[in-house]
């Protein structure tokens, strides 16, 4: 739903001075959590005690250590098919984060470029592109995701396509608004006088100034995409099983909340903590880099 935003308003009032002093350093705990997750994601093959895909029915639903019938070889228990929860969580971090990161890099590039062109060129190009944004936003996102996955078969690639489709309008709108206000600033006018070509102005002078706001939006979207992927898994159009993503795991264990809570609650907590940490970091980055930015 963060794809929804009111029309971008070029901020006119300057931010309030004290906000800049709010926090000079990033909040440590969320930063540590995100750092740890990155480590897990990158080093999953070395950290995971066993394969995330192997299991047998004889070992199904073993509880985590500390509960009755727990086994030391499965510290966080097993799922419905006897696969090790800890290993799946670690690999899940890898899958979930890579869906987010890959998806958002692509989205940010594409949406940002469209917004840049629209804002910089203005006129009919702008009108055309902004109506495209409207059209994209007006289509019911989840439904289009399901349709796309029917057309292309569920796969990692398909989830990425869905992410790009759902999120590009946010970036296009944001970047367009920023570009509009940057375009009229003095340094751009000076560059023009100095004889810089429009392309040079766009990429040399405007793009670097856009990056902070894109970064803020991207930080907030990482969490959104992880949750979105879970929703797609619930509808059967997410990352195809047996590949573990946190979304797949939560969806898989949704009927077991009382009987075997660890199957879905643990990945659920992983998602929760990640999203909250990323939101706090996003807030911080925003306050730090650009207090004027508010439409994210």
């Amino acid at each position, binding site marked *: 739903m963060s794809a929804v935003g*009111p029309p971008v308003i070029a901020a006119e009032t300057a931010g309030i001075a004290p906000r800049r002093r709010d926090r000079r350093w990033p909040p440590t705990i969320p930063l540590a959590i995100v750092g740890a997750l990155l480590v897990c994601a990158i080093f999953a093959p070395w950290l995971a005690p066993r394969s995330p895909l192997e299991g047998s029915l004889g070992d199904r639903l073993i509880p985590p250590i500390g509960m009755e019938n727990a086994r030391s070889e499965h510290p966080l228990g097993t799922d419905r098919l006897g696969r090790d929860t800890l290993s799946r969580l670690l690999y899940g971090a890898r899958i979930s984060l890579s869906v987010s990161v890959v998806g958002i890099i692509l989205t940010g590039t594409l949406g940002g470029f469209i917004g840049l062109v629209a804002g910089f060129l203005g006129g009919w190009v702008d009108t055309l592109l*902004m109506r495209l944004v409207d059209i994209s936003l007006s289509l019911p*996102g989840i439904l289009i995701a399901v349709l796309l996955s*029917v057309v292309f078969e569920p796969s990692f690639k398909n989830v990425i396509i869905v992410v790009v489709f759902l999120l590009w309008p946010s970036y296009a709108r944001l970047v367009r608004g920023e570009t509009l206000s940057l375009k009229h600033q003095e340094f751009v006018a000076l560059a023009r006088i100095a004889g810089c070509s429009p392309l040079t102005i766009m990429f040399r002078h405007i793009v670097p100034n856009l990056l902070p706001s894109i970064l803020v939006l991207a930080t907030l979207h990482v969490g959104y995409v992880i949750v979105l992927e879970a929703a797609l898994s619930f*509808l059967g159009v997410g990352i195809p099983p047996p590949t573990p993503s946190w979304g797949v795991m*939560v969806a898989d264990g*949704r009927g077991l909340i009382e009987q075997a809570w660890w199957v879905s609650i643990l990945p659920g907590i992983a*998602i*929760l903590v990640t999203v*909250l940490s990323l939101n706090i970091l996003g807030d911080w980055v925003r306050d730090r880099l650009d207090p004027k930015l508010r439409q994210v």
Partner: protein
Amino acid sequence: MQRYIIGRVLQSVVSMFVVSMVVFALVRFSGDPIQIMAPPEASQADIAAMRAYLGLDRPWPVQYWGFLTHALHGDFGQSVRFRRPALDLILERYGATLELGGVAVLIVIVVALPVGVYSAVRRGTGLDYAARAFAALGQAVPQFWLGLLLALIFGVLFHLLPTSGHGTPLHIILPGLTLGWFAVAGLMRLTRSAMLDVLGSEYVKLARIKGLPERQVIWKHAFKNAALPVVTFAALLFVALLNGSIIVETVFGWPGLGLLVIEAVDSRDYPIVQAVVLFLSAMYIGVNLLVDILYGYLNPKIRYSA
């Protein structure tokens, strides 16, 4: 202004055309309803005959033209699966989705506005963080999971609310809450930052210097000025919630458009998918148009791109 409005209306009409083309093509790429419905005994000849019977063997442009001209007369074709006009099915269903979206947006406003204002005023305090964390929670938990959890707690454990279905005001609470919580964070953030901007402005300082009570400063002077983006956001949010109700409807067996259309996709029921998407898109584009025009009236300084 008039020229701007006419221009925007025309653009919206063109947008609807594009939407109709996109959805028309997308459903056709997704597969053949006859192949799904026909029993295994059906030969390819039988299937071809059925396809011809439903007019699906004609070239796409011809089909599209037929669809468009009929749709303009309010005829969205017969549902392949139910053998009834798609419009009838939508009219049967959209009420439930509007109810759900309405309740959800109400919950969002009731929670997000006061919390957003409060956390702007008390910025940096523990309560500010707590409120923001609570709001963020709705976005950090997959909706289907939250829904099932709520049904377990309030339906099974405490027997307070029905776990699924539609009918009484009680039935709407859990789905409404599940749908709404997700959106609380967005509106809250917006309220908070709009309030922060206004609170730092000259006239709020002036009001304070005049010695007005703080409550009056916040609600009468500051909030009133922060309300515009908040109200427009809420309007768009309502439409977005309609679009996003598919998962909640599936979890709670809520008989709205979301459940109708997701099953229509499964049976490749072209007329229903087309009609529902057009309906939802029209809502969004319409509200968006109104918001743009409203902004034009209220704040002529805003840069228009039209």
